[in-house]
């Protein structure tokens, strides 16, 4: 296994081709192997990867703990619903609505970022948490005096994505087989996710990415090195929020229905967990975290069937088990892999250094000076 991995590492082009084939064939493998419901799970996996990559820019790159990230997801989703559903009678095409939603979310990212520039750590987390809840509560209550969001009932009949006259709303029948829309959405989401990965990787390894890392490490020193910390932090908020808004629009089109319930605090925490579990700041880690935390709860559903088959009734609700497992997974991670499953180079060093000799020498030097 290790030898195979090494071999792949030495042949990046072959790896890329194999990965492309795997990603292209994945929905069919899942659909025929496990059933079409798993293609839907795949779609959600991709949406969460997109969200996690966006949040990783804010939290992993720039070190700004944002607990209200799902608000941008909500904004993207509601904007899509406003511009492409019977609610206002508007039916704009998705390629127009998605960018508007992403930009609106980016703008709100700046609006949220601006008053929080002086805050750090816990204080920032609390304010962003409040922001996330404010957006959700607005969406929940803006059905009067003017019906903007249809309140807790949510918005229905949102237009599916349609490309060149081909609507993603209906299943496709070819060669005597039926492919539900989840297949088309898979490729659409995959395209956006790959784009997001590309953008995030490029940003990380650039002048901008270094400035974010510097702010994360020491904001005062970053400013003293000529980095405009205000603009750079706002840029991080805006970039993260843009990805969130994009994911929100895709979610609305995919589901056809959105309600404030989809955007509660738990969702923000879930996305943050994905980053922390996978390895903050490292794109492969973030992807792994999103895949695991989306797919495992789905797999747990089988436990319900298993219990029915063996015990005749469901003794432990898999949904409860899900929370328990999340808790156990996070505690285990903190104990055994504190930097995440696939940590970034920097985070790995940060955690590894704690018991390293060099660090001890350093500590004794600091003591000597104190």
């Amino acid at each position, binding site marked *: 296994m290790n030898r195979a991995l090494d071999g792949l590492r030495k042949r990046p082009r072959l790896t890329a081709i194999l990965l492309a084939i795997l990603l292209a064939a994945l929905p069919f493998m899942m659909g025929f192997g496990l059933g079409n419901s798993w293609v839907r799970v795949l779609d959600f996996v991709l949406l969460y990867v997109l969200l996690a990559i966006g949040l990783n820019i804010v939290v992993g790159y720039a070190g700004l703990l944002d607990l209200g990230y799902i608000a941008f997801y909500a904004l993207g989703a509601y904007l899509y619903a406003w511009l492409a559903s019977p609610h206002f009678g508007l039916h704009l095409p998705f390629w127009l609505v998605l960018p508007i939603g992403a930009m609106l979310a980016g703008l709100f990212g700046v609006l949220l970022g601006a008053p929080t520039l002086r805050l750090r750590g816990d204080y920032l987390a609390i304010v962003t948490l409040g922001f996330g809840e404010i957006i959700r509560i607005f969406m929940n209550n803006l059905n009067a005096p003017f019906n903007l969001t249809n309140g807790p009932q949510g918005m229905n009949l949102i237009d599916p994505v349609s490309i060149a006259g081909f609507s993603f709303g209906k299943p496709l029948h070819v060669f005597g087989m039926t492919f539900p829309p989840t297949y088309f959405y898979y490729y659409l989401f995959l395209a956006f996710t790959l784009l997001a990965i590309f953008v995030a990787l490029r*940003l990380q390894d650039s002048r901008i990415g*270094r400035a974010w890392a510097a702010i994360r490490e020491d904001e005062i020193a970053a400013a003293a090195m*000529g980095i405009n910390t205000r603009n750079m932090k706002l840029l991080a908020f805006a*970039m993260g929020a843009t990805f969130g808004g994009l994911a929100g629009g895709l979610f609305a089109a995919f589901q056809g229905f959105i309600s404030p319930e989809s955007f509660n605090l738990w969702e923000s925490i879930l996305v943050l967990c994905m980053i922390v579990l996978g390895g903050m700041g490292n794109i492969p880690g973030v992807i792994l975290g999103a895949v695991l935390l989306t797919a495992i709860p789905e797999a747990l559903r089988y436990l319900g069937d298993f219990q029915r088959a063996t015990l005749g009734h469901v003794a432990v609700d898999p949904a409860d088990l899900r929370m328990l497992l999340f808790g156990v997974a996070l505690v285990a991670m903190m104990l055994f892999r504190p930097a995440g499953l696939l940590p970034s180079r920097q985070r790995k060093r940060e955690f590894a250094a704690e018991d390293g000799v060099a660090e001890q020498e350093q500590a004794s030097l600091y003591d000597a000076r104190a």
Partner: protein
Amino acid sequence: MALLSVEKVTKRFGGLAALEDVSLSVRAGEIYGLIGPNGAGKTTLFNCMTGLYTATTGAVRLDGAPVQGLKPHQIVKLGFARTFQNIRLFANMTALENVMVGRHVRTRANVLGAVLRCAGTRAEEAAIRDRAHELMKYVGLAGKGRTLANHLAYGDQRRLEIARALATEPKLLALDEPVAGMNPAERVQMGELFRKLRDGGVTLLLIEHDVKLVMGLCDRVAVLDYGRKIAEGPAEEVRKNPAVIAAYLGGESA
């Protein structure tokens, strides 16, 4: 004309005046020392000059341009870089990355450029890397670029801070107690680096505690005591100044 002029700067924290009517001027091409006993206000003055504090009254000018009211990053852009008394490197970035961050203010790549990585951005990135390597070599850290900043030896961390500050292309480089915690041999080496920097065209403002080093190295020296300037001039003169001796040895003037 003075490169840096501090004009009657006063800084009060509540009722406490940390600095009172301090004026000094640093000429281009010299090593200027700012000394004084603990708590004399050296670092406060330093922070007023570099934008971390705003002076209560008074003015600071760099090359004729007023500095107060500007944000730290704007002051760096004007050509005034600093190091910190308690080293503030980006601890979990490599030494080279630390220096590359210093190039931020002299480079331009934006989000679009970074994502598309067009020819201009690639060339700029290569130039940043090359310059960072050069500076590492210049301060005596050649070959240590891939070491994590907080894994460097203490003296090397001081050097790295200087390389990082130099990456911003300063006209004036202010060093806050750059030899604190070093042994005599290391101090001599640092002194050599400072002379090399001055001869390379960077004006140095040195804040120190170590009177011996300052006297041996600096072209001119100012002495602060209880937030006031008690002497300024060539090192030899200041050394003999009775007020300075009193401030350092305590008691009545000797």
